[in-house]
């Protein structure tokens, strides 16, 4: 090996972006996960549509709950895959050894999951609008704000808990088992916010504030504890 001068150590942002781009490239090349999850998400919506067949008025009341439960299940399937590739190829050990900060790995994974779950949500929402002939009484931009905050709430904890659950025996079931209870405040908020916007009954601001608070609190906790969990052996 030649003794080349040490390159400037890349910063947090650069490492995060590099990890993110790598994940996307890998995902795009195989397209396995994306396709099967998309199909799973659509199946969930179709099944809900059979199970709950409401009138137009009723549909605005229950659509919020149904779509977020659907997203929750689709997201869990996606989140379970978060670290699968890293595990298969001992990438996590490489990460522990490298000087790259653990935070950058976590942020890259969480952002990647966020984009992935959002890509699932869009066709799910569209299908929902079609099947339920949904028309929102409240402004749509508010729905978008709720969706962004809600998706981050699920994804940030989901990515962290996926890292916890890979160290357990019943890996796939452990993630939803520990994610769901802690996500209850966020779930309550996202469902009720969506419902109040769709029905136009009241302002969703209280719920949006709660979601924002939840996101800030748990993003902080995840960033603080991820290095500890990554190094646990």
């Amino acid at each position, binding site marked *: 090996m030649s003794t080349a001068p040490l390159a400037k150590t890349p910063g947090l942002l650069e490492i995060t972006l590099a990890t993110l781009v790598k994940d996307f490239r890998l995902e795009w090349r195989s397209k396995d996960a994306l396709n099967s999850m998309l199909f799973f998400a659509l199946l969930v919506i179709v099944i809900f549509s059979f199970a709950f067949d409401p009138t137009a008025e009723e549909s605005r009341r229950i659509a919020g709950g149904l779509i977020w439960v659907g997203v929750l299940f689709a997201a869990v399937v996606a989140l379970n895959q978060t670290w699968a590739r890293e595990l298969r190829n001992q990438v996590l050990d490489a990460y522990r050894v490298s000087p790259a900060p653990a935070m950058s790995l976590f942020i890259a994974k969480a952002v990647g999951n966020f984009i992935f779950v959002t890509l699932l949500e869009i066709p799910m929402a569209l299908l929902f609008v079609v099947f339920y002939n949904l028309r929102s009484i409240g402004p749509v931009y508010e729905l978008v704000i709720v969706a962004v905050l809600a998706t981050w709430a699920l994804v940030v904890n989901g990515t962290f808990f996926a890292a916890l659950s890979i160290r357990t025996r019943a890996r796939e079931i452990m993630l939803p088992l520990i994610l769901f209870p802690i996500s*209850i405040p966020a779930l309550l908020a996202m469902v009720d916010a969506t419902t109040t916007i769709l029905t136009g009954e009241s302002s969703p601001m209280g719920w949006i504030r709660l979601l924002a608070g939840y996101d800030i609190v748990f993003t902080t906790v995840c960033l603080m504890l991820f290095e*500890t969990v990554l190094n646990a052996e």
Partner: protein
Amino acid sequence: MKRGFIAIALVTLGMLSYALHQAMVGAPMERTMGEVQRIFYYHVPSAWVAFLCFFVNFLASIWYLVKRSVKPDAIALACAEVGVVFCTIVLITGPLWAKPVWGIWWTWDARLTSTLVLWLIYISYLILRKYSSGGQTPVIAAALAIFGFVDVPLVYMSIRWFRTQHPQPVIGGGEGSGIHPGMFSALMWNFAAFTLFAAVLIYLRYRLEVVQQQVETAYADRALARDVRGAR
């Protein structure tokens, strides 16, 4: 130490008996609800004790992450288990009180629902501990414990907000409703008695865990020694 423990256990038993007497006989009967209101003297202290257990679990988890020693991890586990026991009692006595008084088993009452979520969080903690492999268990459990406890105010706030949006009956009177001194005394006696009882249970579970881990290490050492002898 053993004798000290037996002494404390007897005191606990005494206090529990006296507190039970206070709850059933000592405290005056409630005007509107009647005798069934006495469930309150077991339901509320159990909730406080459960919460105390989970708080200590939170502190012990942080202590573990800092010090990485067996003691705080064992305390965390013990507190979680005992907390879940008391939490289960809250969740069963709550509906048993609600049904005769308000005619319904359940209502998304802020405090009872928060207790349900708390119960779910700590059950998931116990399951995580059970299903994770040896060396890493304390660390990942401690991480989950921190998440769980940090969630508690958020759980409470979200359910409170849900309740203001969708009002429903409150189990056990609103916040700050006045209380008769006779009732207050029964409540406090039961709180003190159950706290002491919880401390006894936690101590027992803690000792069990610590010795269990020592036994497991001893087994491992023995297996290792045999291998070495065999190899020679």
